């Protein structure tokens, strides 16, 4: 029983990692209707920025803040300089652009910072505050994910900018006719997603260590989590992430063993999607002929 609880909590901790990146994916999806395959590498790159700043002697929170801001602008610039050019292209073309970004970021980071793993500090205390099953940092990651979720919710629900972004995502033509600069809304969506990704990266790195491939494994789980939760729902992303984390641990520890746990977890997720094609919390859109 103790081990079981331990597995569940460890799954929640992993799930929080997936959730934090899934939130960034949902963010981009909400503003552009694309799943950004480069999101993980972007987050990884941001985390390296933070690492470099901390190494240069900046205090943690200063580095944290600067990284979030810098990442926001990096996202913004990527959208304006690269993604914009394929705005009208078929979705698969955009996917290839994302893959190109992924490999470039991965390779360039490895080149600049080498591939050896780096220790990234945690802002949370060393000693466990919430019992033996979960470390303070892991609990902190869950907390940060929920904080980001609530902030996003408030932003989209109650600010004019949030409303403008939702409007743009839903109907770009109508939004333009309301005077909204939709081009900037998309760029802003990228910026915010990159900022959320940076937070995710800085939360993940203390657990998994910082290296250029840090996010490549996590990205799959995050995509699965985001889709399972309903790709347009931030709440769904968080719940999806936690579910995937726990599901995977239980599968690996008690059901199928570790060699096939990923496979089985994926089969379960796809099973869910077959019976609930819009995800657990996704809106079903009315399609008109």
């Amino acid at each position, binding site marked *: 029983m103790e081990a079981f609880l331990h597995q569940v909590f460890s799954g929640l901790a*992993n799930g929080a990692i997936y959730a934090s990146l899934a939130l960034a994916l949902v963010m981009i999806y909400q503003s552009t209707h694309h799943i950004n395959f480069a999101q993980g590498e972007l987050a990884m790159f941001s985390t390296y920025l933070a690492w470099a700043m901390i190494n240069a002697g900046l205090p943690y929170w200063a580095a944290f803040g600067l990284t979030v801001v810098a990442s926001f602008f990096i996202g913004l610039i990527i959208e304006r300089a690269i993604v914009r050019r394929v705005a009208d292209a078929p979705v698969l073309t955009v996917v290839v652009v994302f893959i190109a970004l992924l490999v470039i970021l991965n390779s360039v980071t490895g080149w600049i910072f080498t591939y050896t793993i780096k220790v990234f500090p945690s802002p949370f205390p060393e000693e466990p505050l919430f019992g033996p099953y979960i470390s303070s940092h892991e609990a902190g990651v869950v907390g940060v994910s929920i904080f980001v979720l609530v902030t996003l919710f408030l932003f989209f629900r109650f600010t004019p900018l949030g409303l403008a972004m939702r409007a743009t995502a839903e109907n770009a033509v109508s939004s333009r006719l309301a005077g909204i600069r939709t081009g900037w809304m998309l760029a802003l969506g990228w910026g915010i997603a990159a900022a959320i990704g940076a937070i995710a990266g800085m939360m993940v790195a203390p657990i998994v260590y910082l290296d250029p491939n840090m996010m490549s494994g996590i990205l799959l789980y995050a995509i699965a989590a985001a889709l399972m939760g309903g790709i347009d729902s931030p709440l769904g992303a968080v719940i999806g992430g936690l579910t995937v984390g726990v599901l995977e641990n239980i599968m690996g520890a008690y059901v199928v063993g570790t060699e096939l746990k990923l496979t089985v977890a994926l089969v379960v997720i796809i099973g869910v999607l077959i019976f609930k094609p819009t995800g657990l919390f996704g809106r079903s859109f009315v399609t008109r002929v």
Partner: protein
Amino acid sequence: MKSNHNIKTLILAMFVASVLIGCGEQQTDDQDASVDEIKIGSTNPYSGPASAYGTIGRAESAYFKMINDQGGINGRKINFISLDDGYSPPRTVEQIRKLVEEEEVLFLAGTLGTPTNSAIHKYVNAKGVPHVFVNTGATKWGDPQNFPWTMGFNLSYSNESKIYAQYVLENKPDAKIAILYQNDDYGKDYVHGLKEGLGDKADTMIVAEASYEVTDPTIDSQIISLRASGADTFYNVTTPKFAAQAIRKANDIGWKPLHLLNNVSTSVGTVLEPAGLEKSVGLITALYLKDPVDPQWADDEDMKAYTEWFNKYMPDESIDDAFNVNGYIIASGVARLLEACGDDLTRANIMKQMASIKDLQMPMMLPGITWNTSAEDFFLIESAQLARFDGKEWALFGDVIGN
């Protein structure tokens, strides 16, 4: 359809014609090295998920650059061509064929990875191209009967495992062993070796096995399972990032087993420091290389030479990374091999020299761990020494094990 018919006839005609013209391929067995340059080929994963190993290839290139700056070997420059295979076997085949057939390299050295080398094993032996210092620890690289052109470099994973098995049998005969391994050839070779080493006690002693994929973000769940099995001995067969995670996690959840760590992840700078030096106290491993971060070698002559070389030829890379030592030794081994070959730069002589190394103490190898080969023995490194981490350095203990 008429046009369709036309095209079919055309294709057929062209095909028949081209088959008739077909000329046999000329086989070239042995190219003598040109007078002033020796071409050596290699593959490494410079791109893709395994690009962490790319630094090994860069270290090898950097070493040969130093050799060339010093005037080469026997008056000949080394042209070391190291190509990217992205750790993908089909690409290795392609790149090796390029090296052998287009570049016409004299031999291959330091090709990295088990699946990648498996893919070219038959080809290079059919072609009679020396395929030496194969940079993985699988046992199959020491099979002179069937593959006389292939010789591995590393202490084989299974031999290393047997050292741990022997240690456990002698010091903790009632151990309950839990194994964490990477779900690939490397991980499974280690597990297999341990089971062989334990013999018929394997079934009773090994109480839990858990695997992970390189794409897994963490191995926390596996560590929790292994601990729950009640094991008091932990055999940790993981690559650096996961080794660091495992050491830290085991410590954090209060699991204090006899912790055997595979040699792949013994780097103080890139594994133990990230995991926490105090959390690494008590780790046991089998060593055969010197670690550039380990303070016990700080005044060592080999290490001084290594550091000097590193700072001059690889200024942008991380000296912490023990992978570079691997590349350094392979390259110096190749240089040593060429010196031994003298002016007889034929492929046959290369294998002959490779298979007649006696008690060779190479730089950066632990004292007493020498290279020995013969026509029947294609294992270059066959010994190691156990070491326990004391919080600062790997404290060697016991004798050099193996031959």
